[in-house]
């Protein structure tokens, strides 16, 4: 991790832009400007200034009008944390979040959790961050690491139970000087050794409890402890994290909150010439480009490709956007022996001479994902600036002129921050490829019925379960288009619904002759006092549209609701900027309109007594066991 926001572009006239915030008349324009100022490379003083202006200019009702929903973050610890608040809020603006930060009283984190009348309980946090300083962890009578971790487990459990919120635990900074040296582990009472023990046991405990770590110890390992911690500052003001890195700390923290809400980037769009290999394939030819053993430059590109392949294997979708003749662009993927990435690793490959902004739009359409989930990597500053200007939703990191540091830039920027890894993440690219094959078959089959029959589809359903909890939560938080109500839930809230005896929860997996499409639909319905089953959540992956999955889902839901004793199904459509595609879903499935709600939503009902299962070309069955 760099101790500055090195991946963000510098904004010329930053100070003037900040000044002009005060003279912008329109709140929406002002908010957009705050977001863009926060998205530039700033130091901790600039970060504090921006935050002061933002807090002064926008608040309360203005935010509601702008559609910006505040998130409440409680920052609890054992030493001074006030200097971290502005960096956290600015990292929020960078992601279009408005964060309200509650600072715990100095050293009072335990009391905050145990006393139900504490400000923490009134605050009702969406996320709790526990940041213990190293002195607290390793000195005095707190020598017993197990006991401290036991206390923390207790705090985590309270946070999950009482607030159903995201819990983030900071690891301890390894600040103490060594007493022995390289073999410090042989001195059990060494404070440095205790910190190591604490961080190690914390990892195991956090994994068991579903708590996310803010691993400052890992980041410090890259920068050196001196970059993050100054003992003189500790003695003067009990600031453990150096104010100079506060904006970096804020970004590391907020990317975790974003990731937990399913808002990390999903797709990496790569340039080719001088990004994946050295030189220009069209000019230098297959044997002229720098790639692989033999030159340090060639090795640097191989190393970057390995990093990219690692991202792909954990679920990041890869795309190529190159100004080249397609045949030239493809040649290294198909013929160069040193290429690490192969054509099959790339879900969408676009090489032509059109401008990159149009091509990137094309890629987002083809993959059916939002522009705001793309990251664009290009060695050419002209192309980077073009994309930033034309498509400001897209993340465009500044990268070094030396390919040896491309991977570092991507890692530092943290666009793909992930808090869990599911089996589906690992198979994502295969699913996208299979989808491309299905598209080809569709083109060759003109009759829809025979096409659907030829797919031999199987829909398997099961209530939510612990095994798929992470995936279900991920889908609930990131599905925007086919989503009737767009209600977001944390993992803890989903667990709450699972325990509700008056709720139906359904996860659906779709198989066909090309393979497994994974979990593609999520439904939650709750029985109300009139014995109506109200569909709280219905969302689906857009990849399976037009395959009668909607009808099949309704068949399953109707059956389950009747089993619970429901007389009617009630569906709601809550319009957002992105879910227009499902505005007529309920009428299309035979629901009758019930009228509009005050918030702009529309209600529909379906009488279950007279409901007949809709005809579909899928076989439907219930999974025999959890973890379908």
């Amino acid at each position, binding site marked *: 991790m760099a101790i500055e926001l090195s991946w963000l572009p510098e904004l010329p006239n930053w100070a003037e832009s900040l000044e002009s915030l005060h003279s912008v008349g329109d709140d929406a324009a002002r908010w957009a400007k705050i977001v863009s100022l926060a998205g530039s490379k700033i130091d901790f*003083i600039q970060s504090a*200034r921006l935050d*002061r202006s933002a807090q002064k200019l926008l608040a309360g009702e203005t935010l509601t009008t702008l559609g910006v929903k505040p998130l409440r973050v409680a920052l609890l610890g054992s030493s001074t944390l006030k200097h971290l608040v502005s960096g956290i809020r600015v990292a929020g603006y960078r992601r279009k979040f408005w964060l309200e930060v509650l600072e715990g009283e100095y050293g009072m984190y335990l009391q905050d959790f145990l006393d139900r009348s504490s400000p923490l309980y009134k605050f009702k946090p969406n996320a709790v961050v526990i940041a213990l300083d190293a002195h607290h962890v390793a000195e005095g009578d707190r020598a017993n690491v197990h006991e401290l971790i036991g206390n923390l487990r207790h705090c985590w459990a309270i946070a999950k139970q009482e607030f159903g919120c995201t819990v983030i635990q900071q690891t301890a900074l390894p600040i103490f000087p060594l007493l022995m040296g390289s073999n410090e582990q042989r001195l059990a009472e060494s404070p440095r050794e205790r910190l190591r023990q604490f961080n190690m046991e914390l990892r195991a405990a956090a994994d068991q409890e579903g708590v996310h770590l803010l691993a400052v110890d890992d980041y410090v390992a890259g920068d050196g402890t001196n970059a993050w911690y100054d003992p*003189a*500052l500790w003695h*003067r003001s009990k*600031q453990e994290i150096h*104010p*100079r890195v506060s904006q970096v700390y804020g970004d590391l923290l907020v990317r975790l909150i974003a990731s937990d809400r399913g808002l990390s980037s999903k797709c990496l769009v790569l340039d080719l010439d001088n990004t994946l290999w050295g030189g220009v394939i069209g000019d230098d030819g297959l044997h002229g480009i720098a790639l692989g053993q033999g030159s340090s430059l060639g090795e640097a590109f191989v190393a970057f490709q390995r990093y990219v392949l690692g991202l792909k294997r954990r679920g990041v979708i890869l795309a190529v956007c190159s100004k080249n003749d397609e045949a030239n662009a493809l040649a290294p993927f198909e013929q160069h022996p040193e290429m690490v990435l192969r054509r099959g690793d790339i879900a969408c490959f676009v090489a032509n001479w059109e401008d990159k902004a149009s091509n990137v739009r094309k890629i987002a359409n083809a993959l059916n994902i939002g522009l705001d989930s793309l990251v664009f990597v290009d060695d050419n500053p002209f192309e980077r600036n073009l994309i930033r200007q034309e498509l400001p939703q897209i993340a465009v990191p500044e990268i070094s002129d030396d390919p040896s540091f491309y991977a570092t830039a991507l890692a530092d920027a943290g666009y793909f921050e992930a808090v869990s890894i599911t089996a589906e993440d690992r198979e994502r690219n295969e699913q996208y490829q299979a989808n491309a094959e299905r598209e080809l078959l569709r083109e060759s089959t003109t009759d829809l019925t025979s096409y659907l029959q030829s797919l031999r589809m199987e829909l398997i359903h099961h209530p939510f379960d612990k095994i798929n909890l992470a995936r279900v939560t991920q889908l609930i938080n990131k599905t925007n288009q086919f989503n009737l109500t767009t209600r977001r839930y944390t993992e803890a809230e989903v667990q709450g619904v699972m325990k509700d005896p008056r709720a139906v929860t359904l996860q659906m997996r779709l198989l066909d002759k090309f393979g497994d499409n994974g979990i593609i639909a999520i439904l939650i319905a709750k029985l109300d006092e009139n014995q109506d089953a109200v569909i709280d959540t219905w969302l689906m992956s857009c990849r399976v549209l037009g395959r009668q999955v909607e009808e099949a889902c309704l068949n399953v839901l109707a059956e389950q609701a009747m089993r619970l004793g429901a007389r009617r199904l009630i569906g709601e459509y809550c319009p957002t900027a992105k879910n227009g595609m499902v505005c007529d879903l309920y009428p299309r499935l035979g629901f009758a309109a019930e009228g509009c709600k005050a918030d702009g939503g529309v209600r529909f009902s379906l009488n279950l007594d007279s409901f007949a299962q809709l005809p579909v070309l899928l076989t439907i069955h219930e999974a025999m066991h959890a973890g379908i």
Partner: protein
Amino acid sequence: MQESEIYQRLTKIFHNVMDDDSIVLTPELTAPDVKEWDSFNHINLIVATEQAFKIKFQTAELESMKNVGHLVALIEKKVNKS
């Protein structure tokens, strides 16, 4: 580096840290004279000054620091030594 240049650069730092462009630095100026100059901003001021002039103050120096004139003298000594 001349004293006048140090004053010029330090003024900019004060303005940015306190978010107040009306502050005028004089050798006699102390924290109670400036509304925004609280203990929190004081830390930021010191860190920003260290960063801008590429110097490091010692704990004892900071403890005995009385006013802006004293701060400027410290900066001058350190900058011209390196």
